Structure formats: structure tokens, C-alpha cells
């Protein structure tokens, strides 16, 4: 029992000797030394774009030179003007909502990282 009390006391003293060390620019100095890897991001964008173009081309060819697109437009022409306007407005709202959600999420993420240490 005495041994346990002594160990608790020793551990408590040791922890007390490890106070919080203020950052005082340490993080900024570390980040300033990081290598820059911008090329990887731009390479990823190129790969994504190329994959999209290739996939679209394949879909176009496989579907009989885009017959499904012609059919879709033919189908749309049978809709009333009101329905087409509602469809356009709906698509607009949907895109705006998705964009806003993405922007808010990104803003919160940036805020949580602390604006003071932007480099």
C-alpha cells in the first residue's frame, strides 16, 4: 500500500515537471521547412479529367453513337414548357445547395484549424 502511494506521488511529481510548452512560433518554423508538393495535386486533376473524358467517350460509343442522348432530348420535347422550367429551376437549386454545403463544410474545416496560423 505504502509502495503504491509512493509510486502515485512520484508519477504525480513527474507529470508536474512536464508543463505545457508554449508553441511560440515552433509550428510555423516546422511548416516553413516542409517541401512543396504542388505537382501532385495538379497531376491528380489531370488524371481525373482524362478519366472523365475517356469514360464519356466509351459510354458514347457503346451506346450506339449517343443514341440515348437523342432519345432523351426527344422525350424532353414531349414535356410541357412549365415542366421544363420546373426541371431547370430544380437542377439549379440542387447544384446551389450542394455547392453551399461543400463551401460551409470547407469553411468549418478551415476554422477548426485556426486562422492565425495560415502560412
Amino acid at each position, binding site marked *: 500500500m505504502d509502495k503504491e502511494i*509512493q509510486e502515485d506521488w512520484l508519477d504525480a*511529481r*513527474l507529470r508536474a515537471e512536464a508543463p505545457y510548452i508554449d*508553441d511560440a512560433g*515552433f509550428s510555423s518554423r516546422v511548416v516553413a521547412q516542409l517541401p512543396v508538393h504542388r505537382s*501532385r495535386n495538379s497531376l491528380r486533376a489531370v488524371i481525373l479529367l482524362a478519366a472523365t473524358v475517356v469514360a464519356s467517350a466509351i459510354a458514347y460509343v457503346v451506346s450506339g453513337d449517343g443514341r440515348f442522348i437523342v432519345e432523351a432530348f426527344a422525350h424532353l420535347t414531349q414535356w410541357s414548357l412549365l415542366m421544363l422550367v420546373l426541371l431547370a429551376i430544380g437542377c439549379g437549386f440542387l447544384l446551389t445547395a450542394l455547392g453551399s454545403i461543400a463551401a460551409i463544410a470547407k469553411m468549418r474545416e478551415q476554422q477548426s484549424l485556426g486562422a492565425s496560423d495560415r502560412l
Partner: protein
Amino acid sequence: MPVTDAALVARVLVDDDHHAFAELVRQHQSTVRGLLRQLTRNDLALADDLAQETFLRVYKNLRSFRGEAKFSTWLYRIAYNVFREDARRRKELVGIDESKWQEEQDPKTVDLALRHDLMRALNLLPLHERSAILLCCQNGLSHEEAARVLEIPLGTVKTNVLRGREKLKRTLAAWGPN
């Protein structure tokens, strides 16, 4: 709400997000610098240089972190390796010999403030015992985690902690609970 280590690591890996890495550094700089200060016997400038090298090494090797252990354990391991490499270069791995230890633990010399005595007692421990004590008793790592950090068997960690504790208790006997 603070972002978790795992989320920050993912953002660094996926987006090469320097802001996320800065946050990782901010969250862990105090413990890493504190540990290195103790290991370098309170050489603040050297400890900060080693801490900087530690975080740069973390950044370069982040892809090898598989998340099997806690991020902090992995970080301590890198910090300890950086310290060990530097100590090897400086040939300071040997630590203090036992004769000096015996001399220093004379109760007549224990007449300064507790903090001073504790730091002195810690600095007198051989490196393997000091490291185990710092990781387990001061930074709260389990024996298993400390074994991973120090890359030594679990039993050795337990022995080092036990011996280190005994030596500290002997030196600080006058300050301990009655």
C-alpha cells in the same frame, strides 16, 4: 471541437494539406519538446532542433504510419530515434556511471528544492531507465507502447521502469509521503 489525429493525418496524405500538418504539430509540440528536453538533460536549443527534425521526419514518413498504434506512440518513437541518432553522434548514450550515482544519492547532498532534486535525479538515471520513466510515468504510455517506442522487449521496459523508480525514490525519500 478539436480535429482528431487520424483526420489530420488523412488530410496531409490525401491533400498534402500543410494547414492540417501545422495543426498536428501544434497538438503534439509540447509533449515532444518536453520529452526531448528531458532526454537531452534540459538542453533547450538542442531539444528544439531535435523536435523540429522529428516533425520533418514525421512529414516525410507519414505514409508509413499504418494506424496500428496511436499516432502519439509513433511520434514518440521517431522523436526517440532522432534523439538516439544525435546522442550516438555525440557519444552520450552511455549515461552516468553507477559510482557517480552512489555519490549523488548521499542524503546530505539532497538539500535543494524538490523540483531541482527531481530533475537532477532524473538526469542521473542511465538513458534506458530515464527514457522508460519519462514515457511511462511522465507521458502516460503503457509499458507495451513504451516498448514499441524504444524498440526493446516489454520485460526490459518493465525492468527499466522498476529500477528507475527505485533510484528516484531513494534520492527523493526525504520528499516522499510518510
